[in-house]
């Protein structure tokens, strides 16, 4: 089953007379049970997309469905099935962790007979059982983020949206958080949508990722599939590099450009594997070849390339 289907979803804000297109005819499909990463630079429209899918803001045009429920007509129903862990998780600082979770659980209409059990389970899941009766204002940022996840888990949602969940967390806290998300997906089958600009984080846990730019999804797929779409980068390192040799290599059919020239090292971008042709040129010129290899692209490079 598809957890999310969005068709030409658009959101335009009017700010001081200016039209700002935050989401621009977005088309998206996310399967139930997967961890989907929504990647993009700041201002790409990731948070707005999440807000639209949760029914927290109305679309200007287009449609979207979360587990078959319309985001406009059935927004309350969607929020029964979904949870949000925002970038800035807000809690009432003077209340304890337990009191906060109880308040939000009651707000969601949870029966009081189930409250205690679910809260205890959620706190245990995020490893905050020992902080149950401590005011939230004493929590560190990492603990607040975990408590925010617990707040959502109390309701046992089918899908969780995480907006920049590890922003501001140290590496240890980030790792702990990632493990919790993986466990949630693996053991309980919860669909997870993570919005982030931290590529290394997303790569570690997402089954699929989608790149957003200027309100549109420009590419989706598994990480390995996306990396294959990148243009080839070839590293050439020789003992002597002259401008004539460089120009001859540049003129080869398939060379898209020279990325970097550093001393006797050259990185070039190509549409196909040109190592044979390049090696012929270098051998004819009597140049000693130190390195001639394809450099495997990173997700960062994919991101940068798609962002250009």
């Amino acid at each position, binding site marked *: 089953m598809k957890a999310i289907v969005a068709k030409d979803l658009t959101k335009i804000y009017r700010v001081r007379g200016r039209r700002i297109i935050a989401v621009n005819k977005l088309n998206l499909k996310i399967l139930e049970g997967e961890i989907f990463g929504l990647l993009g630079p700041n201002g790409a429209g990731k948070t707005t997309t999440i807000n639209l899918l949760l029914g927290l*803001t109305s679309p200007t045009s287009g449609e979207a469905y979360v587990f078959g429920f319309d985001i406009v007509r059935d927004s309350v129903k969607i929020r029964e099935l979904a949870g949000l862990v925002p970038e800035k998780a807000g809690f009432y600082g003077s209340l304890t962790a337990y009191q906060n979770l109880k308040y939000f659980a009651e707000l*969601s209409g949870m029966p009081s007979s189930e409250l205690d059990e679910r809260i205890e389970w959620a706190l245990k899941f995020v490893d905050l059982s020992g902080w149950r009766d401590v005011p939230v204002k004493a929590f560190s940022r990492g603990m607040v983020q975990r408590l925010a996840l617990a707040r959502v888990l109390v309701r046992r949602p089918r899908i969780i949206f995480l907006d920049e969940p590890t922003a501001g967390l140290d590496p240890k806290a980030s790792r702990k958080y990632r493990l919790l998300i993986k466990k949630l997906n693996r053991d309980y089958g919860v669909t997870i949508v993570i919005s982030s600009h931290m590529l290394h984080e997303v790569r570690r846990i997402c089954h699929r990722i989608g790149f957003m730019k200027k309100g549109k999804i420009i590419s989706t797929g598994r990480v390995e599939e996306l990396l294959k779409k990148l243009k080839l980068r070839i590293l050439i390192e020789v003992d002597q590099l002259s401008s004539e040799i460089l120009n001859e290599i540049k003129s080869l059919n398939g060379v898209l450009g020279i990325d970097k020239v550093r001393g006797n090292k050259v990185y070039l971008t190509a549409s196909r594997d040109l190592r044979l042709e390049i090696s012929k040129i270098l051998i004819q010129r009597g140049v000693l070849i130190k390195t001639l290899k394809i450099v495997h692209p990173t997700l960062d490079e994919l991101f940068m390339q798609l962002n250009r």
Partner: protein
Amino acid sequence: MDYFSSFRYITIVMFLAALISLSTYSSISRVRSEATSFLDLITRATPSIITLITYIGSILGVSLGFDSINRERKEGTLLAVLSCPVYRDSVIVGKFISGAISIMVSILLANLLASGLIIAFTGISLSLDEAYRFLAFILLSFTYVLGYYAISMLFSVLIDEVSVSLLASVIFWMINAYIVPSISWTIAEMMSLENIEYRRVIRASILMFSVNEHYRAVSICLLNPRAAYRLMPITIWSIPIKPLSLMETLMTTWPSIVTLVAITIICTVMAYIAFTSREIF
């Protein structure tokens, strides 16, 4: 989230209760032998309960409302609440109802304290007409303070910064409590009219723009059956012969009562519309 346990609310209510207790007790001590009725004792306190609710009650309304929405938006708890399966309008309605309940409790506490002290120390009991008048006064006081709460909550919805919404609420309060009354004197004096009656009319006309004056005028008439009222301009004078019944008082003071109720309703509706239509993030 919880007004009753907030330091702000407890402080203001305790302050109001303390002042009412002191002024009522001093009234009992000073005028006990002259006072002929319960309402007589209530109105002769210095400062009177009307004055205390006019100033401190309105401060209470402002203090509860000015950050009711924008603080939660800033701290992220508004988003947390709205991401629960709740309708957006239930948030603003819930806030309004909780504020109204808090205000009603404080008004009841203040008035019951004053009446309790009078009955306990003087043995004077209320007649049926006095009881109805006192009840009407309590309801009017509730409406008045609720109006300030509604105005402050409206500022809280429209203005993102808590400090700016507080400033706007305080400015509104000052205009009604001090600036309009001061301007009324100044303008009346500047007219330099020889006729004192004309000066009084000019002043009374300007005072119509003060919410506090509408409340004060109706309160005086409710707590004093011998007070008569006119709206254009707001004028109160004593009737030497037959006191008015409660119905007669209400029939004459209805324009100011409607003004107070209308302000509350209009501001509440505006806050509701603004909150439900505005992007929260």
